[in-house]
């Protein structure tokens, strides 16, 4: 177990190193940040000054080594645009995005699993079919379009919910959170639903597929024959097997949720890091793009580790280290 973990960690470091190279080269290929940031009135002397200030006059490898040197000291560079450390900028936006993403994932589990169980148990019932039809809509609709529709209906037409922004926040553990205030919660309903929609459908379908598949297997027939109650068979035995794909997918999807927050945050003016990254791409704020992507890599590597760990807990047939 420990050796497995260690090996994974070493691999993770290599993955991240490889990533820095790809990202660093990638962002240096696209566009010229100086062109975008500089005053349109600027002359050649001013242009050269800015290029030097950003360190862009040096060759790429030198910039990369400089960057790596900073990373070792926990410094991912300063934003070209804001002149603040990129990590601090992202950190400032981090709680808003995490709050939104966790709420969305929680929503997809809370709504998706019960609906999926029902649809799996009564696949031919009217409600079961309706749920499946609804799930298809769930991931068919483009996020940005659903977002705008939600705003149109619930904020503009009905006036039930605030249209955009994060609302009032309250402090907890030194960080500002929306879920602690009524106003904040009201602001979160639409973006979280918008973000969760696709995953509700995904979880629902996986659950349903799992239920249908497992109900036909010998162990269920056997358990039933043994006289176990149907609810026990479902919630203990079947659930355990269903959870494998569901946990995998939720884990894997979490990063995507964080990334897809890009669109939701733009539509709902939610001040999270997704909006920051889109803005940064638009002005080619390279240090922020690199720092953001690095953070996402760390997040994903962690998630993957956790998912693999969960596998062993949920399905002892999967072994992590060694093979017979």
């Amino acid at each position, binding site marked *: 177990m420990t050796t497995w973990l260690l090996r994974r960690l070493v691999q993770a470091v290599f993955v991240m190193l490889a990533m820095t190279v790809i990202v660093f080269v990638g962002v240096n290929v*696209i566009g010229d940040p100086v062109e975008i940031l500089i005053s349109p009135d600027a002359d050649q*002397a001013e242009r050269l000054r800015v290029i030097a200030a950003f360190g862009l006059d040096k060759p790429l490898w030198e910039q990369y080594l400089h960057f790596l040197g900073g990373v070792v000291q926990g410094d991912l560079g300063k934003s070209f645009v804001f*002149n603040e450390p990129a990590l601090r900028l992202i950190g400032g936006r981090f709680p808003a995005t995490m709050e939104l993403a966790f709420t969305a994932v929680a929503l997809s589990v809370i709504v998706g699993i019960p609906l999926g169980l029902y649809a799996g148990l009564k696949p031919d019932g009217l409600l079961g079919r309706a749920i499946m039809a609804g799930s298809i809509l769930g991931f068919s609709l483009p996020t940005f379009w659903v977002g705008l529709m939600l705003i149109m209906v619930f904020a503009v037409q009905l006036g039930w919910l605030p249209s*955009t*922004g994060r609302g009032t926040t309250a402090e907890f553990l030194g960080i500002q959170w929306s879920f602690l205030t009524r106003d904040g919660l009201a602001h979160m309903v639409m973006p979280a639903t918008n973000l969760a929609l696709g995953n509700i459908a995904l979880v629902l379908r996986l659950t349903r597929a799992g239920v249908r598949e497992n109900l036909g297997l010998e162990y269920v027939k056997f358990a039933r024959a043994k006289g176990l109650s149907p609810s026990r068979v479902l919630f203990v035995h079947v659930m355990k097997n269903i959870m494998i794909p569901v946990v995998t997918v939720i884990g894997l999807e979490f990063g995507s949720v964080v990334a897809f927050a890009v669109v939701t945050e733009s539509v709902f003016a939610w001040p999270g890091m997704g909006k920051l990254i889109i803005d940064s791409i638009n002005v080619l704020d390279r240090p922020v793009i690199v720092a953001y992507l690095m953070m996402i890599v760390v997040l994903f590597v962690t998630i993957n580790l956790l998912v693999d760990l969960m596998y062993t807990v949920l399905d002892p047939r999967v072994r992590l280290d060694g093979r017979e």
Partner: protein
Amino acid sequence: MLRVSKALAVAVLLSAGAAHAQTVTMAMSSAPTSVDPHYHTFNPNETLDLHIFDRLVERDTQSNPIPGLATSWKLLDDTTWEVKLRQDVKFHDGSPFTAADVVYNFDRIPKVVNSPGSFAIYTKTVIAMEVPDPYTIRMKTAAIYPILPVDMSNIFIIPKGLGPNPATEDFNSGKNAIGTGAYRLVSYKNGDRAELERNDAWWGPKPHWQHISIRMIANDGARTAALLAGDVQFIEFVPTADAARLKSDKRVALAEIASQRIIYLWLDHSRTGTPVFITGPNGETLEKNPLNDVRVREALSIAINRPAIVDRVMEGAAYPAGQFVAKGSWGYDPSHDAPVYDVAKAKALLAQAGFPNGFRITLHGPNDRYVNDGKIIQAIGQMWTRIGVQTSVDAITWPNYVGRTNKQEFAAYLLGWGFTEASNPLRSLIYTFSPAKGWGAVNRGRYSNPTFDALVDKAMTTGDDAAREKVVIAATKVAMDDVAVIPLHVQKNIWAMKAGLTYAARADEDTRVMDLRPQ
């Protein structure tokens, strides 16, 4: 008991109502990059900062210079400006405003660390300063420079008490955000919101709002929706698609004005030989760049149905243009109203120039920078195709686009230019590209015309405003006769607010909540 609590409830309601009446929430269309007023020449920063800081020279709604922290300014001789300062003005920290603060600001501006767009372009013409008394300052320029007051209208003043080179980060935290302005900064959250509280000691007319909450909502639809939902009471940059609908909505009032942003097409003047993105009518390589022929340029210009673009694509939120400044503004050349749409004449001109069967061209443009940019180039593509110039259209995101325009990679391409003073586009865009002089800095098409350059040189050494206007008009006429660029339209600036409020619309793109008042 019951009565008391009722009275209390009424009182609470009333005071809440009163407090609400003096609080306004405004939505900006893009987020400032910093509160530091000397950090980045960027319009959203200006909009936020003008509430907190004042400038020596302010601008009226038509962008004419008016007194700000300076009460008057005049030329003592060709190279010396004398500026008189407003007395009894105090910064938010209580320190008095004097000439020493001005000197401090001119000194600090070139030293701001890592500035992505320095304000030094507005201070560099001043080579020396004299302070005969605390409320008078004399600025020396190397050569005659008649538009110094315009440059001063870009510089916000911070107190010298902040010490040598105050950090940009400390402005964002509020520590250094000390100005003389109508509002104090209460809090600032990057990319999200800023909270401002009225400065009752301000020298200007007392603003109506005790408290301003500024939200940053970049998405056009979301900004309009926030206004309609009542979350904000005031928005800037109303999208053209919504303006028509908002006009008929009783809950909302609009304020609009011709802006100082021209949308125009560059044509490639940099190549005389084989052109890029242009081929013969059957795709064959051309020996010569057809865009070097003024008849071709004119044909392309009059083939564009500007009123149709304004009406159908811009939905009325623009004015057709034949030059940079809007009709009625300072420096407008009456001989160049918007060119008249004339397909027959355009075809004839092409034939005269040796292209009876037209040619093929790719028209480039951004799709995320100017209002409806991607749609405008498609519409022009239709119109050019109709005179036999088979046009393909390519819209590119701004970050990938702008660098390529500077390298002369395109044949014809759309850009916009915002300015506050009529000679500025002539100097920056059309004047021969001269890095040493700093002029023609964004002459992306590399147009060059000695007659025109001589006129601009003359304008920039003419101190008298009326005489200078004549020269500016003459220079404009030369450039437009030669179709140096193809002007398309001047955008409208549109603000929208809750019904019952009025706003003094401005030709520059600043949004001043001080100018938002109940009717």
